[in-house]
């Protein structure tokens, strides 16, 4: 800790990360561990949970995981309400099925809404209750949102509906949880290069669309987002709550 520069340090803290096996969730879990935080990983692929364990344990922090679908309310509730330590939630699990509005299938809409909205709410509520139950002096919840929580994009009606919702939830939670000194923020990345988005970027038109809409003319990396999440998770941001950290190379500034 300097005179005016606060450390971004998570030593002794425990963070639960959903969707931790791939992409943003996996990167964020690693970044949190690099900052000294213990990891509780929630994911649906046991092999990937195991390979993550190897990486996290090398960083000399504790690791715990559960193979669980965030939609499975009873299973996730049992798990979270039995945690002995919890300070941070990275509410990351999410999905997308891009379709033009007129052709959005009912099943796609329901799949996206279940994960991006309902499960996000449930996991947030369960973790907030657990942080309070454990009598933590402070806590931090980071909802992984998107630039499509701020603006619209092609074939993103359902995704925007859910991510605008997450933005609203973030502000509402921040107000209700302030008295427990639990801060709640979102990060809003542009389209990040991850295993899920790789197939979008394979399309030349899409690639061009993203680059042309990003004034910095670069693709956001997992490391860019993970670093911001760690900043929001740490006490370096102890007065930041109810807001969004937009990581979009200028996309939404236009």
């Amino acid at each position: 800790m300097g005179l005016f520069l606060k450390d971004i340090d998570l030593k002794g803290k425990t963070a639960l990360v959903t969707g931790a096996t791939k992409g943003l969730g996996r990167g964020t879990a690693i970044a949190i561990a690099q900052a000294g935080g213990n990891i509780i990983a929630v994911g649906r692929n046991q092999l990937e949970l195991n390979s993550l364990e190897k990486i996290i344990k090398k960083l000399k922090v504790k690791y715990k995981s559960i193979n669980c679908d965030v939609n499975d309310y009873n299973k996730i509730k049992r798990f979270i309400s039995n945690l002995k330590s919890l300070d941070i939630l990275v509410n990351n699990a999410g999905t997308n099925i891009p379709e033009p509005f007129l052709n959005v299938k009912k099943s796609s809409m329901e799949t996206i809404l279940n994960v991006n909205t309902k499960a996000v709410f449930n996991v947030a509520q369960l973790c907030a209750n657990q942080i309070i139950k454990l009598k933590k002096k402070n806590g931090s919840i980071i909802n992984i949102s998107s630039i499509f929580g701020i603006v619209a994009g092609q074939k993103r009606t359902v995704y925007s509906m859910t991510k605008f919702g997450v933005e609203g939830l973030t502000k509402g939670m921040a107000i209700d949880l302030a008295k427990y000194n639990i801060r709640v923020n979102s990060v809003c990345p542009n389209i990040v290069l991850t295993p899920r988005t790789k197939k979008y970027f394979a399309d030349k038109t899409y690639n061009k669309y993203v680059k042309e809409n990003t004034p910095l003319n670069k693709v956001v990396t997992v490391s860019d987002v993970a670093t911001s999440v760690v900043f929001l998770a740490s006490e370096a941001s102890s007065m930041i709550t109810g807001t969004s950290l937009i990581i979009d190379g200028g996309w939404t500034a236009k």
Partner: protein
Amino acid sequence: MLKKINLKNKIALVTGAGKGLGKACAIALAEAGARVIIISRTQSDLNKVSKIIKKTKGSSRSFVCDVTDVNAFKVILNKIKKLDILVNNAGNNRPEHFTKVKRENMEYLTNLNMKAVFNIAQLCSQKMVKFKNRKKIGGSIIHMSSQLGKVGCEGRNVYNMNKFGVEGLARGMACELAKYNIRVNTVCPTFVETPMVKKFFKNKKFKNKMLKNIPLGRVAKESDVATAVAFLAADTSEMITGTSLVVDGGWTAQ
């Protein structure tokens, strides 16, 4: 995965660096390894800040200058070889009810909070883009805005006008300077424990009323804001441009 706030080999200029937030930012940037150029109207304030920076093993150069004096500022810039970071901080406030705002106060505040902010940003940007490696090493400009650049508040109409303006300027600059890899963002603090705010808070009724608007129930510390500025100055935020980092304890979330 995790990027650290590291400003080694960077040169940062901070205006209004003699007191309050500017002073805190200058010291924080120096703590992160930057060489800092501090600007203020008051030599004795600059001396104190230089001394603190020296004590923390940082490096600084100071210049006495009123930022509304464009020609004097140009002379200073000519003495500097390279510039990577600008913290466009100098500003002031004279709260008055809209119907009672004196013309001279409106002009004083607008000259300082908008015209000088624009001029300093333009001159520094011109200096930054001239550096031939700019695209590779990047640059960062941080305007000191306010939560009152996001929402209105009684007696703050001129300040609102100025800070909303700065929010617009930051977005426009971000779009135009992206091709040079210069990022432009704002920091929007709530009331901070600074000499300026201490003066306002002598009015206890006002203080209590303001604190009620901050869900976290406390004012920000100078280090909260300075750390956010350092985060935006460093490569930790290399894909963040054209946005605001709101450090307001939840004020604007409501």
